[in-house]
């Protein structure tokens, strides 16, 4: 028992010294992961909002194009999409650097899933609410902004945050294009120092802290933004 405890303490102090020794690299890597995620999440939010509204209101042409985009992204692996953007496109003279592919790939992926989230949210808004809006004299765009968006947006919020969580997790795949985010950086340090267990402990904990914080946020928002009974 004492031996086991001693083992645990050395492991903990080893892990801490791993963080201390490589603090600057790890911090820069974490910042890149968060930066790429933030850009992708903001983009996915706009894509989801616009295309989700187009899908829910069956706006001609835009709706069909959005449907094709959503089906292509949802039915192909994101890893292949990353490979295609980084290794496939240069053949037709489109050159994207690792940073651009990093945020673009997860943004396109998150945008497709978010389109479905928002479409479902907008379609879940009861017709009588929209009719009430029209009765008050709102034009279609004003009706969307004042009635469908606030109500449907709330309905879509939990599932869209789940998509953002997946976006953060998917940034780890940028390892394959050597973009120095968290996973790539920790694996590079591990290859140099051979502190394998410490490296993967730090890597796993970093992702779990980010992901768990975001899911706690969902629970918080769910109770805070729950729709009153009259809107259901």
């Amino acid at each position, binding site marked *: 028992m004492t031996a086991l405890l001693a083992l645990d303490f050395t492991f903990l102090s080893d892990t801490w010294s791993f963080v201390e020794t490589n603090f600057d690299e790890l911090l820069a890597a974490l910042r890149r992961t968060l930066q790429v995620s933030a850009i992708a999440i903001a983009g996915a939010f706009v894509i989801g909002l616009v295309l989700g509204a187009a899908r829910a209101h069956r706006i001609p042409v835009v709706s069909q194009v959005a449907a094709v985009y959503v089906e292509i992204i949802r*039915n*192909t692996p994101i890893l292949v999409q990353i490979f295609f953007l980084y290794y496939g496109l240069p053949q*037709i003279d489109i050159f994207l650097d690792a940073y651009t592919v990093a945020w673009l790939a997860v943004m396109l992926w998150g945008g497709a899933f978010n389109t479905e989230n928002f479409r479902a949210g907008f379609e879940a808004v009861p017709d009588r609410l929209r009719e009430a809006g029209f009765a008050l004299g709102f034009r279609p765009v004003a009706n969307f902004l004042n009635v469908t968006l606030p109500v449907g947006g709330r309905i879509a919020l939990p599932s869209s945050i789940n998509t953002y969580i997946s976006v953060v997790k998917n940034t780890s795949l940028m390892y394959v294009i050597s973009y120095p985010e968290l996973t790539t950086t920790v694996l590079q340090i591990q290859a140099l120092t051979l502190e394998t267990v410490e490296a*993967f402990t730090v890597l*796993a904990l970093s992702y779990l802290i980010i*992901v768990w914080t975001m*899911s706690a946020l969902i629970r918080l928002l769910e109770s805070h933004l729950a729709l009153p009974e009259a809107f259901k």
Partner: protein
Amino acid sequence: MIPAWTNDVLRYMLEQGLVNTLKIAAVALVGSVVVGVTFGTLLTIKFLPLRAVIRAYIEVWRGLPILVTIFIIYFALPAVSLSLRFDALTGAAIGLILWGSAQVAEATRGAVQSIPREQHEAASALGFGWVGRHAFVIMPQALRRLLPPLVSLLVNIIQNTTIAQVIGVNELLESGERSIERLNAPPPIGLGEIHSFEILATVMLIFFCISFPLTRLAAYLEKRLT
């Protein structure tokens, strides 16, 4: 019109790559369902320590990116003990099972809890024990509700098998990558040509042809349920 190399490349990708992709996906699906249904059902027992352990299992493997999970199994476990060494294909399958079973466990918990308690009581009255009650009365009903998420899970598993490429498994994506490199090599080995665009587009197309019918099926099952 169609260049001569396409035939060889396509055959290689379908016979080597696709077969390995489907092999990993099949193992991962069966493993995820067996482990996930068991854990999900156990999660409905009101015994706190057991629930805490399963809850931790779900939150950890659902929270980690699958790439990190596979790295941990393939690189970190052998560093802890040499007996925990797996070949790349097994390591990838285990990683997918850890992630997939966490998804299934969560869905199973919801499905089992959605069965009215009268069903439990009626089964008990007929003399079923806990195991028999769940195996013969509750699960057959819960499975109906579980079917749409399981089809979605299959789609996700098939797509996530590509992550095995990172640790060198020759699945569909890796077989495409190897074909690109071979064609890029100077003659007589290759053609000295770059065909990454066509080959990666083909990989996407093959995945699309598998996934699209399955996502339609999941949507149909979901709709029929409600």
